[in-house]
């Protein structure tokens, strides 16, 4: 598995996708901090926005808006490029077990998502410091990074349906459509009391400890687990059995 992971990292050498994804991860913190700063500076009233609010808002935008399509594109790139560049047939005749290929790619996807999550968190911190926002403390740093990482981990866990669609349809377009659809559902359901039943909004609420009391927390965990496991099992079963053309 270590060798497989090494080869997956090697495949990213000189790849523009890595830089593009970093640029994508920069969008949420930049928009949140800059827009908040401009808002404070242009309002005559003494509006005060604490640092905690910046982290919350950035995490919200990352998980519900930017994260799903951004990580969806990363997922599609990782899993579809073997089809697009016609390299899968080489890997499978080396031979490598199909499950190992999937697991090594998922491991890399996890590392990639966590890195982008840290980029978003780090940039929020940096821009917040530059903007001289108040209320930064060690406990806030620890709490916010924990919230970011938990949310990032949930987004990774919930990537299995996106992996499935990529592998079955072998194209970037359906994956992007699915990611945009998920984002729309997230936006539409965010103000609903039932959002604890939507896997992605539930993930955000669990990470930030903001679950509504409408349903027991177990329901949210169950929805997330079911979505992830069904996606994972379907992916493994399909990929192990599929003919490679």
């Amino acid at each position, binding site marked *: 598995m270590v060798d497989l992971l090494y080869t997956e990292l090697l495949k990213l050498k000189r790849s523009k996708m890595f830089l593009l994804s970093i640029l994508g991860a920069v969008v949420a913190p930049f928009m949140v901090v800059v827009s908040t700063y401009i808002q404070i500076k242009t309002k005559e009233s003494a509006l005060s926005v604490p640092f905690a609010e910046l982290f919350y808002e950035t995490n919200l935008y990352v998980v519900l808006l930017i994260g799903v399509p951004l990580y969806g594109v990363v997922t599609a790139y990782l899993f579809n490029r073997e089809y697009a560049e016609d390299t899968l047939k080489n890997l*499978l005749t080396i031979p490598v077990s199909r499950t190992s290929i999937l697991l090594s790619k998922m491991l890399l996807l996890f590392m990639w998502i966590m890195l982008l999550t840290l980029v978003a968190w780090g940039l929020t911190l940096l821009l917040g410091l530059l903007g001289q926002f108040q209320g930064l403390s060690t406990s806030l740093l620890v709490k916010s990074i924990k919230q970011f990482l938990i949310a990032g981990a949930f987004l990774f866990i919930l990537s299995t349906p996106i992996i499935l669609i990529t592998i079955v349809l072998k194209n970037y377009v359906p994956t992007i459509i699915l990611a945009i659809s998920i984002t729309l559902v997230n936006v539409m359901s965010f103000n609903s009391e039932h959002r604890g039943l939507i896997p992605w909004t539930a993930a955000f609420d669990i990470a930030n400890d903001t679950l509504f009391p409408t349903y027991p927390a177990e329901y949210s965990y169950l929805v997330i687990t079911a979505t992830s496991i069904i996606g994972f099992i379907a992916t493994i079963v399909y990929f192990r059995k599929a003919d490679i053309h």
Partner: protein
Amino acid sequence: MSVIIKTTNLTKIYGNQKSVDHVNMTVNQGEIYGFLGRNGAGKTTTIRMLVGLIKPSHGQIEIFGENLFTHQKEILRRIGSIVEVPGFYENLTSRENLLINAKIMGIHKKNAIEETLELVGLQDETKKLVGKYSLGMKQRLGIARALLHYPELLILDEPTNGLDPIGIKEMRRLIKALVQERKITIFISSHILSEIEQLADCVGIIHEGKLLEEIAFDNLRKINRKYLEFQVSNDNKAAMLLENHFNIYDYEVHGEGNIRVYSHLGQQGHINKVFVQHDIEVVKIALSEDRLEDYFTKLVGGGHIG
């Protein structure tokens, strides 16, 4: 001589179509086996089944005497292959592409990559990204990748496709060298008869999914038939005379006025005399031999290979 590949009733069905239909094939150790067929005949589907990329609908594959489906991992470790156009990570160099294979296969031999690149003549191109390689260079890199782990069997699917004449010649030289130097068994597919003829010891002819013939080239040359070729003004009348006057039924009409008679080879003078007596103008008489191309054309039921 031991058997390296043996397929039994190998069949692949897509919907209602049999892409590969009960193929029984035997490839012996140390030989170059040419797998010949027109485009869409079922060559690539067969090769994909041989390397485990697709599963047969029916039938068995034995490679190195073991069942492919139960010993796939062990068998594939002893095989190098190129299936259609080899795919590479175009953002990487040739060395980095081969490093991926070396890492996964656990090849620890120092200089294995450099040696293999030298074997295919790419030792001076190691800093160039594969995305900038020509098709011929990619084909050679594909062979290098297939050879990296010193396989005992090399499966090549149309390796000369898209190559220019010099590239084709180089590829042929490389394949012959591999057999001589590394004693590898080679299974090579092509839709070009002359390619197979210049390389292979044995040929399997596939058409519409069926293996029509499997024969050593030496035997094939022996069974090629001689015939009398007449170019006449009226082939219908000539054919009637052959049947009624000479009792000859072993003949074929090839195009306008061209008749090939496969018996009575010494009697061209007599046949000519009778044709002329019946007002048939004879433009040409020749004693000819079936070329391999004719043989294959007859076998696949007309048209040309390719």
